[in-house]
């Protein structure tokens, strides 16, 4: 009997939340006399699909490149050669401390042009990866620092070579700690890719802006845009939660 009432309570609460949120948006629309018409989007479905695919392509490509850049930067920060470590630290600080929008303009129109990177898509992936790489470097650095120093001493004591220590001890311990944060970063990559619209890469946001300029249905267009992004990031967060659960039971909460 008790299970029934808690279940019922949960359902009622969910329904109430939906009513409150939908109701708020509904009332807002009424106040500005906006007539909803989502059917206008159907005519653009081909372009929207292309944009959706492009966003996914940009996001996945950036994921791999940014993982690479992030790993290199994390390791470089610990380099004994001071110039290398300073360069890496500077990169992480500056990139994390400036807006992506600024970086897109700077790297595309100035650095990119100067060094002959004219292909918009390549430039887009590189710029986004450079941006996300700095955040990933910090995630990796934090993860490495959270590993008990004695695990490394232990590896030494049982006679593991540095290479084996990395493969059998460092890497698994690091992954267990940072995998949830990394997948969260992937969700950020997906959202941040929307800024690539400023250099006209035909991803989802750019397509939506072009459609808006055509049909002026700002609310329908951007609501749908938000919905599509949410579908992508929510999928990622579901995967994150599963990964978190998997790694939690393997690690004590010390």
């Amino acid at each position: 009997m008790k299970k029934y009432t808690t279940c019922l309570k949960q359902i009622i609460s969910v329904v109430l939340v939906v009513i409150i949120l939908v109701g708020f948006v509904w009332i807002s629309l009424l106040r500005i006399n906006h007539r909803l018409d989502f059917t206008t989007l159907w005519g653009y479905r081909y372009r929207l699909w292309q944009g959706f695919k492009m966003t996914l392509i940009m996001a996945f490509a950036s994921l791999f490149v940014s993982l690479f850049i992030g790993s290199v930067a994390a390791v470089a920060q610990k380099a004994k050669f001071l110039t290398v470590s300073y360069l890496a630290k500077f990169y992480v600080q500056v990139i994390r401390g400036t807006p992506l929008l600024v970086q897109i303009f700077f790297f595309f129109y100035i650095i990119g042009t100067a060094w002959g990177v004219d292909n918009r898509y390549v430039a887009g992936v590189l710029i986004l990866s450079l941006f996300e790489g700095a955040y990933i470097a910090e995630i990796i650095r934090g993860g490495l620092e959270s590993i008990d120093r004695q695990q490394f001493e232990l590896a030494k004591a049982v006679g593991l070579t540095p290479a084996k220590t990395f493969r059998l001890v460092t890497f698994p311990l690091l992954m267990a700690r940072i995998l949830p944060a990394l997948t969260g970063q992937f969700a950020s990559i997906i959202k941040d890719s929307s800024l690539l619209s400023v250099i006209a890469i035909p991803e989802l946001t750019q397509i939506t802006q072009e459609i808006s300029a055509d049909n002026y249905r700002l609310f329908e267009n951007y609501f749908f845009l938000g919905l599509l992004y949410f579908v992508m990031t929510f999928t990622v967060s579901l995967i994150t939660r599963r990964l978190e659960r998997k790694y939690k039971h393997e690690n004590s909460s010390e």
Partner: protein
Amino acid sequence: MKIVLNKICKSFAGKSVLKNVCYEDDFKALAIIGPSGAGKSTLLRIIGGLLPPTSGELYLDGVKINFTEKELLSYRRTIGFVFQTKGLFEHLTALENVMLPLIHSLQLEKTEAEERAKQLFARFGLEREGYKYPHQLSGGQQQRIQIARAVAMKPKLLLLDEPTSALDPELTAEVLDMLGELQAEGLKTIIVTHEMGFAKRACEKVIFVAGGTIVESGDSAQIFTAPQTKALQAFLNKVLEWRP
């Protein structure tokens, strides 16, 4: 086993931790006792090849240990080391903890490694803990598994750094029992410990380290009944004060 410590010195960032440590003797079980912070753990790590001395020499059974990474790699594989706490890989099960060094340091086949590990576990009553992770095990079990891991590698010497200091008294006994059994079979050990009873009964040689140097050393029979130096007398009095 014959050990020679010749003018071993160790300093960290200018601070001296060990000064001119000299010792030479033949032993089966050697206990290192002394007040906290005296440098006992550091000395043990140097003997284990985990830390290089700032200066000085180490000989085991007449062989000089050169502190180059290459030589140390093979040296460490012959020495077992048991840490005070957190001495197991957190991401591996108990069995995997024992098997990993066998497979990757001693190049054993996986099946053989598994055999050896399971045998040791069966012998010391750890069969049901094999698939558990360190955070699921009690302190005593973790320490015994550490010993099993070290012993599985058939080391010529086992070093233990205060293996029972972090344990509740009830768990201390099971660890010391296991150790006693192994010693009786001929395993050579050097143990840093606060357990004076164990040091007295199970170790025939004792070193008393205080202030970064060996103040007194000798047969445990003499050391505990008739300490020569004032420092050792004071130390033993303090330690034995609360005993019934």
